[in-house]
């Protein structure tokens, strides 16, 4: 069924203006100074590529090592409290990486590459766990039972692994993309120990020194190539294995009893959540409440009250900007997602919406400056509009992915039967397609809100984003660190977690959307 053309055109225009135009301008700049490309052959550049790949590979290793067993356990076994554990496992992904770095650099003496890999690995294992859990739940019961009858547990696992592996690879490639583009964690870890500079760091430094766009772009080219490669893999894997649409008559597999393995499984799951959630959050709580006379509730309350007093405006600005970005992104992603799911060449829409995310955030921020920092657009450049546009462009890939998957799982017959009774494309889009995928739409809104709240890398460069709470935290941890900073990090976490957890607890149960 064709999508509503005017809505799709408006949505694609928004993507082009705030997502693709900044990238196109940056690519254009490089043609004006081809000599900048010579930097790519520097020994330093090659060493940076090596370090960045090391970082990405390390993060992928951790994410796979803990994400696969965790995802399988919560999806298919009688692990006690698996629903709650599954919801809690989202928290590390929602935590701003800078906040994780603040805690872990105090908790452990590791520094440099191991610490950076550890923090980003823990932060991104939920991507693997979530996709694995989803894939494991979507293997048909009769297939599992047939394998079990043939050769017991080993036959079952050998039958299931090819169906789960694409999901694990998809989660791992996304973790890789997040890790190699992260600027805040390597930057912060380097500030408290030996320098571990990676590509994202270098792009920012190159631009900051003399603001030569061409050099920043050429420096970033290998990073962009790596990211595109990883996202290509992710897109390819998206419809593989048991992530493909379910056939009619599907029955969920039965829950397996862990038996004597239950205790080790519980210890593993709780241990993982302890190091990825409870320890970093606990460290912040300890820091917020520790004064000259040790930890006290009074001191904790004082730190929170100081955080709210000093940073209320930053918090308010962050919440408003993130909410606005999520609210604007939703109809845009809905229109693009419908086109991607239903149009013959829709996968190109999906790929286009992922491009802004494929570029390093720092480069994306520089691109926004290049597009909008002109006398004619000065008010827009310095105001909230650009921040909302930048967040929309940067994070549109996620709601588009979620909504596309949800629509692909919805029978096209629903729209066709509405077309047969005279419903217009607009009516079909908003009255037939939207209601059954409401949980996916809620998930899409939440994802943009969460990513927008924790956005720091591109926001460092855009003037309107200087008032956000993440920017305030970034400055605070680099220049002076007081009790209230830990309290502010906790308040920020709380604000980020609320919509994510609400969605995870209620809406996610109604529909599996992250396929």
């Amino acid at each position, binding site marked *: 069924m064709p999508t509503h053309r005017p809505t799709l055109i408006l949505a694609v225009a928004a993507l082009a203006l705030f997502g693709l135009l900044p990238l196109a301008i940056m690519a254009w700049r490089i043609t004006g100074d081809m000599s900048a490309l010579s930097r790519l052959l520097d020994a330093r550049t090659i060493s940076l590529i090596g370090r960045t790949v090391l970082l990405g590979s390390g993060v992928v290793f951790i994410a796979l090592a803990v994400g696969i067993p965790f995802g399988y356990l919560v999806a298919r076994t009688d692990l006690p409290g698996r629903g709650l554990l599954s919801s809690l496992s989202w928290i590390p992904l929602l935590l701003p990486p800078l906040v994780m770095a603040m805690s872990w650099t105090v908790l452990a003496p590791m520094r440099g590459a191991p610490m950076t890999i550890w923090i980003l690995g823990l932060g991104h294992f939920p991507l693997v766990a979530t996709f694995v859990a989803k894939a494991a739940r979507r293997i048909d019961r009769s297939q599992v039972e047939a394998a079990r009858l043939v050769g017991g547990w080993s036959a079952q696992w050998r039958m299931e692994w090819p169906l789960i592996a694409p999901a694990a690879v998809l989660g791992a490639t996304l973790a890789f993309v997040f890790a190699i583009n992260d600027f805040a964690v390597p930057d912060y870890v380097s500030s408290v120990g030996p320098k571990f500079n990676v590509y994202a760091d270098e792009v920012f430094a190159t631009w900051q020194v003399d603001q030569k766009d061409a050099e920043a772009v050429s420096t970033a080219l290998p990073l962009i190539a790596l990211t595109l490669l990883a996202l290509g893999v992710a897109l390819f894997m998206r419809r593989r294995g048991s992530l493909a649409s379910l056939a*009619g008559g599907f029955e969920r597999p039965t829950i397996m009893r862990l038996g004597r393995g239950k205790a080790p499984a519980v210890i593993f799951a709780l241990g993982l959540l302890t190091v990825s959630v409870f320890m970093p959050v606990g460290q912040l709580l300890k820091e917020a409440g520790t004064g000259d006379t040790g930890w006290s509730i009074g001191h904790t309350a004082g730190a929170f009250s100081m955080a709210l007093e000093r940073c209320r405006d930053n918090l308010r600005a962050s919440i408003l900007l993130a909410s606005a970005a999520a609210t604007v992104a939703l109809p845009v992603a809905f229109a693009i997602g419908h086109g991607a799911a239903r149009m013959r060449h829709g996968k190109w829409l999906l790929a286009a919406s992922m491009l802004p995310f494929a570029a390093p955030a720092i480069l994306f921020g520089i691109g926004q400056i290049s597009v909008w920092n002109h006398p004619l657009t000065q008010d827009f450049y310095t105001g909230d509009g650009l921040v909302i546009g930048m967040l929309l462009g940067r994070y549109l890939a996620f709601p588009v992915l979620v909504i596309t998957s949800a629509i692909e799982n919805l029978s096209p*017959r629903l729209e066709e*039967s509405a077309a047969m009774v005279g*419903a217009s494309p607009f009516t079909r889009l908003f009255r037939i397609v939207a*209601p059954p995928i409401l949980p996916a739409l809620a998930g899409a809104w939440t994802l943009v809100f969460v990513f927008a709240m924790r956005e720091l890398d591109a926001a460092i460069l855009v003037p309107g984003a200087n008032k956000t709470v993440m920017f305030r935290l970034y400055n605070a941890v680099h220049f002076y660190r007081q009790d209230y900073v830990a309290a502010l990090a906790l308040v920020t976490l709380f604000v980020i977690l609320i919509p994510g957890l609400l969605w995870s607890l209620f809406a996610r149960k109604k529909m599996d959307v992250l396929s």
Partner: protein
Amino acid sequence: MTFALETKGLVLQAGPRAISDPFDLQIEEGQHVLVLGPSGCGKSTLLRTIAGLQAPRKGTLELFGQLTDDGARRLVEPHKRGIGFLFQDGALWPQWNVAKTLTFVLKQRGMPRGEIKAEVTRLLEWVELSGFEDRSTPTLSGGEAQRVALARALACKPRLLLLDEPLGPLDFELRQGLLQRLHTLRKELNLTLLHVTHDPQEARAFADVEIRLNHGRLRAPKTIQHAQSAPSQPK
């Protein structure tokens, strides 16, 4: 003579095993026509093309004397063709209950607000589901869902009803019940039925003509001979 459906040199856009030769087909008004053939031969594509959900590659299609498709050019929108469509899976909208589903259709068809409730009641009586107004569509059984889908199709006041294996998932008794209901409604409302099925034995008792799609071709329509004394013979 005006036919309910008439094609000239029609070529469908379909898969490699589907009918690829141009074909001429004429179906008289009020007939119940069975469409038979192996999986992948293009039966559903034929129905979707007639409904306007998919454009043909070549040829012309006329419905009740009106040219609706000329080559790949669609001249009449699906909802203006006087067609009702019963999908294999019912394709009921999961967000609404039965009454809201039918109300949505009647509003789309421009029925005045004051008349809708009575019409919903009448439609449900037709499909023998009186009292089902408040039932949520996902809670309906297979047979009930298909009857609601039939009511939804009838709400458009169709002259031609396209049935894309709507009885497939139902058990024998439900299939017989729905076939009987369709037969009665065909007589009452002077409907033409084009019925894709994998199980022609049951449907033959109610049908007048069968057409067969095979080896890339559409065979000439064949009149079905009914035994006069057959107990299930509806005529």
